[in-house]
């Protein structure tokens, strides 16, 4: 009777494995560079760099907050929808950490709501760090890895530009 039990166990393990998302072993080819206007100058809260840019825990926290605050409802996993895509190279309002912070904090006129005052600045920096990871612009050692849940796009560790 042991053999059927083992077979049964193996089957369960296999089926459980089926529920994981697809593994991606190669990074995406980077998209074409956006030729439009570059970021405006200036800083927010006196910071030019994101304090969490190399902090894996904070970037992963940013990913959790990205769903928590319904960012994913508009921007999906980076491909966009109601909101602009975040995984491509086009940054309408600039791609520096401070620009991303400002977009989240103050909102943007074509539909991005302002989260400043509703969300702490510290959480916005974590979100801004994750937004850069969506495009694949943080080190793969820092970026979130494959989700356990439905994830259609490649995991952040396997995106372009690292």
């Amino acid at each position, binding site marked *: 009777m042991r053999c059927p039990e083992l077979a049964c166990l193996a089957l369960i393990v296999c089926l459980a494995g089926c*529920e994981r998302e697809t593994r991606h072993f190669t990074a*995406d080819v980077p*998209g074409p560079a956006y030729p439009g206007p570059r970021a405006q100058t200036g800083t927010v809260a006196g910071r030019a760099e994101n304090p969490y840019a190399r902090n894996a825990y904070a970037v992963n926290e940013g990913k959790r907050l990205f*769903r*928590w*605050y*319904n*960012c*994913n*409802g*508009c921007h*999906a*996993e*980076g*491909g*966009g*929808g*109601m*909101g*602009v*895509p975040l*995984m*491509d190279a*086009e940054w309408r309002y600039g791609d520096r950490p401070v620009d991303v912070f400002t977009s989240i904090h103050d909102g943007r*006129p*074509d*539909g*991005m*709501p302002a989260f400043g005052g*509703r969300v702490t600045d510290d959480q916005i920096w974590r979100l801004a760090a994750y937004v850069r990871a969506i495009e694949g612009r943080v080190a793969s050692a820092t970026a979130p890895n494959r989700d356990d*849940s*439905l994830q*259609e*796009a*490649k995991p952040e560790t396997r995106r372009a530009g690292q």
Partner: protein
Amino acid sequence: MITLESSLICTCVRAPLRARRAWPAALLLLHALAASAVDAEWPMASGDYANTRYSTLADIDTSNVGTLAEAFAFDTGVERGQEAAPIVVGGTLYLLTAWPNVLYALDLTRPGAAVKWKFEPHPAPRAQGEACCDVVTRGIAYADGTVFMVTLDGQAIAVDAATGAERWRTPLADVAHGETVTMAPLVVKDRMLVGNSGGEMGVRGWLTALDTHTGAVAWRAYSTGPDRDVLINHSRYAPFYPTDRGTDLGVATWPPEAWKRGGGGAWGFVSYDPALDLLYYGTANPGPWNPEQRAGDNKWTSGVFARRPGDGTAAWFYQWSPHDRHDYDGINEMMLLDLDWQGARREVLVHPDRNGYVYVLDRKNGEVLAADPFVTVNTSTGVDLKTGRLQYDPGKDPRAGLTIRNVCPAAPGAKDWQPSAYSPRTGLLYLPHQHLCHDAQTYTTSYIAGTPFLGVTAQMNGMAGTSRGAFTAWDPLARRARWTLPEVFPVWSGALATAGDLVFYGTLDGWFKAVDARSGKPLWQQQTGSGIIGQPMAYRGPDGREYVAIMSGVGGWAGAVSSGCLDRRDGTAALGFVGAMKDLPMPEVKTGVLHVYALP
């Protein structure tokens, strides 16, 4: 003989003298049938109150459609999805673009249809970020020398049809809470009817009636909440099924307070039966999408209301998808037909729903006479005609933490907003639709005003073994499809049926097509250069000739991948629609061009 007959008929055409001079006399001899004031015009997006989208014009028919050629084109310069139907009244064509909702009047009496006037309402730019599925509008309505329109940010506006001057403007929607308006208003007597969008943003759905003379709100009927808000007066409310009877079901069928952000918008087409004096319209999906956060039937979402236009009170209600699990809005068009149903003449309402069934209801009382699947459906097993209740398959119910795969039809349903047509000559419905399935995972979501209230990650795919798009002729009496034309992409345009036994529709890869209404045989097609998601219509020009018009301009939920420049590497983009649209031609040309066709 033909020439003589035509000449005689020509004298009956009530065209302005100036217009007749503008065209060669030879063209005036082409009339095949006497023109009437009715068939010359197309005063509302759906063509008529019954929502049949049937034109009595027959100059263009199965024998000559092959020679159809472009008569003129008009570029609006707005490069977002163009879902609107042009309308034609009194020798003028009126056209509303997607955001920023520019209204044009084109003078059809002048060669090339010169612009008569242009009206720019300047809607709030932020509305673009609150509209779930591209920044579309579905059209306008004409009545008593006035064009009625609604901007994306929900301002109902009356514009003088002769001059383009604004008569009044009434803001209806709260953009900060995710409300937008995309539907085409309907005018019934002195009421302008407008419903809201925003089921993905946790809005509370409503249909509002405004006084056409002043713009004052006459009544507003909510789709959730207590009876006094839903305009249910129990002495005058008589639904057919017991499950729709009871006090304050719009509160009792929700967890506490959940009805306040429960969705149920009214963004589809409104129908009207003048004899019964009843309006018919569908309500959208409940919010949030995650059904585990809203136990109960979630009335009055994903259903159909019959209401009296005078005071808005409900006559009856029926729910297509109680406690909707899969984003099956119930807003698809209601075609009001009189059919010989099983030996008796019945006044019915025919409705192809997102949940995959073509419903035939008695439109006097809401009794379901038939509900038959027109695609492969695995989310339900049928509709119980005794109770009227959809029988869900619990195996496809979303459950927190589980990825439910191969949910068919997918969130946009077997057929989304794209309106069908009905030809009384063939007795067939013409359904533009799609074969899509989705994988979805739900999670608990929080309500944050002005942000999506979903609780789901989904991605769509084509249904195995069939094409993603389809154009189906459905026989409502035989309760089966007569023929289906496969299309590569979901057919996101409306349909038009004509007395020339032709049916017109457009495709997301830019083709505008005419097929034989009886056999489905493709007879003519023209490439417009951008995806078509508009509504074809036909009119008789001031020169007496039949014209067929369509807006071209890729977008909408299905075409958002192109119009919104979304990233195709993420199949969950555009609420998962990108998963099924990754091969939409790229670069797809973004335009907003009106194309008008006539016989040479």
